[in-house]
């Protein structure tokens, strides 16, 4: 067996680059996603340090990366958590969709994109990054805060909605037209309900097949099953990402915990390859031209997310401070938005790749920063003349 030494060196250097970028991100408490994108831009076509031999690895690894990102996203939430989120926050989910998809639609129309491209833009501005948001809440020690269930519920609802949105998008992108889109929607709604209904009877059986005392067995079985389902889904025209996501939703309980644990390092490697490859295939010379549009979109959709969080946190009974924190926590966009952009780019829609790259870079950096700032500002103390609830409630 002969391995091209150039290939090994280039992939090795890329991984070192990712490691360094990740370490910087970890140090300053920010998501590594934007740095991975930058690293990709730095080694891609038309860049300063082109690494052509690594292209094969990136295209193969980023395919698995999308599957793993979607699988772990599906594994993240249990059906009890879905049920509670729907019960308590269904209106928040609708507000989230209406406020945050609209700027994407407007941007898509202004850019004169085809309908499928407009739909993709809607998704890109709509969903928050559950990875970045959850990590920020943990880092800032906000898990016990009043508004936190509202923030997490919005993330869960977006994830459920994605299970229906992605198949429709994929069908439209493949040129299915309106009829095809409706069929895609039927397939999507059908599959999602089948998965949610079958998760009851099939879940335990699936868990028995996948669970094993050895981590290696859990990893091989889960990954194997997911890749097969993802491949079949791709073949059936509903995209590998959707298939992997549905597998993640169907796995539950302790198997999900174990699978999450063993798949994490793999997801980190291949997920990083996905972000890298996204930057790699974007020409850095295009970036300055799309930056103003990306920034404008970022400002508008940051504001709409703040309103969404405000609304959701109010349903949870939080006061103004908690509502503001919830809104700012939700601003971050990340991996999911790039997966959507990747589907659109793959279908040959022009102009969406650069804009999405720039937009996600701004939002993945800006989101956690805004979330951090919102915690430090304290409300001004009440004036001496203002009556407070306390003076009447506590004697003496």
């Amino acid at each position, binding site marked *: 067996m002969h391995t091209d030494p150039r290939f090994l060196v280039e992939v090795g250097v890329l991984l070192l680059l990712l490691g360094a970028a990740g370490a910087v991100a970890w140090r300053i408490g920010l998501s590594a996603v934007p740095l991975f994108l930058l690293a990709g831009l730095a080694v891609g076509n038309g860049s300063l340090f082109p690494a052509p031999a690594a292209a094969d690895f990136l295209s193969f690894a980023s395919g698995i990366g999308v599957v793993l990102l979607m699988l772990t996203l599906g594994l*993240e*939430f249990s059906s009890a958590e879905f049920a509670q989120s729907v019960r308590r926050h269904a209106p928040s989910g609708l507000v989230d969709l209406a406020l945050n998809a609209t700027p994407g639609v407007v941007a898509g129309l202004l850019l004169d994109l085809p309908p499928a491209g407009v739909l993709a833009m809607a998704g890109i501005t709509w969903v928050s990054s559950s990875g970045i948001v959850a990590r920020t809440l943990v880092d800032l020690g906000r898990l016990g805060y009043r508004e936190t269930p509202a923030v997490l519920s919005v*993330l869960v609802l977006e994830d459920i909605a994605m299970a229906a949105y992605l198949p429709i998008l994929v069908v439209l992108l493949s040129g299915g037209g309106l009829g095809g889109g409706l069929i895609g929607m039927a397939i999507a709604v059908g599959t999602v309900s089948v998965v949610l209904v079958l998760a009851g009877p099939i879940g335990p059986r699936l868990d028995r097949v996948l669970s094993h005392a050895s981590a290696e067995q859990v990893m091989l079985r889960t990954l194997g099953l997911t890749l097969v389902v993802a491949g079949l889904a791709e073949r059936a025209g509903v995209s590998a990402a959707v298939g992997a996501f549905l597998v993640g939703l169907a796995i539950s309980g302790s198997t999900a915990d174990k699978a999450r644990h063993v798949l994490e390092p793999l997801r980190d490697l291949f997920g990083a390859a996905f972000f890298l490859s996204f930057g790699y295939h974007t020409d850095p010379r295009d970036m300055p031209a799309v930056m103003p549009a990306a920034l404008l979109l970022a400002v508008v959709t940051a504001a709409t997310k703040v309103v969404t969080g405000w609304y959701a946190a109010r349903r949870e009974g939080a006061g103004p*401070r908690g509502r503001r*924190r919830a809104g700012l926590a939700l601003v971050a966009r990340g991996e999911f938005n790039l997966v959507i952009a990747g589907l659109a780019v793959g279908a040959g829609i022009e102009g969406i790749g650069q804009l999405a790259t720039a937009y996600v870079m701004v939002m993945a950096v800006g989101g956690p920063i805004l979330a951090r700032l919102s915690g430090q500002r304290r409300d001004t103390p009440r004036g001496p003349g203002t009556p407070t609830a306390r003076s009447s409630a506590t004697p003496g």
Partner: protein
Amino acid sequence: MNVSETLLPGVGIRYEFATDSGERVGLVARRDGRVDVVVYDPDDLDVATPVMTLSPAEANTVAELLGAPRIAERFADLTREIPGLVAAQLEVPQGSRYAGRAMGETRARTLTGASIVAVVRGDQVIASPTPSQPLESGDILVAVGTAEGIAGVREILARRPD
């Protein structure tokens, strides 16, 4: 006491309660076993002060500290009223002859006069166990009797397999 429970999707469960002294306390039990403790500002529940984060082992220890002794304490109140009566917690030691056997086989009451009134296993309490109750090493037995009787039970539990 009223404890409200909220699922935190992807994170764990949040328990919330108010103490008699007026503090509102939140406990976040994360999926990985860590526990965060926060205290809410009574004037503005949006202001929460993180108090500490316990590792899974620390959380277990705290649970044990707060759990098992409370049962013995309640018996202590009872024994205070009856002179000569003592309550004690006795652990079934590693390698005890009675680990894995029914409690009745110890013949503790017949031999010492002391009664075993509860078996505490982890966070589970078996109140007024029957003689067929199996014992495991590490179980805490709550025994009531005279001081000599309790010492006798302790000695029986410490016996090694023949």
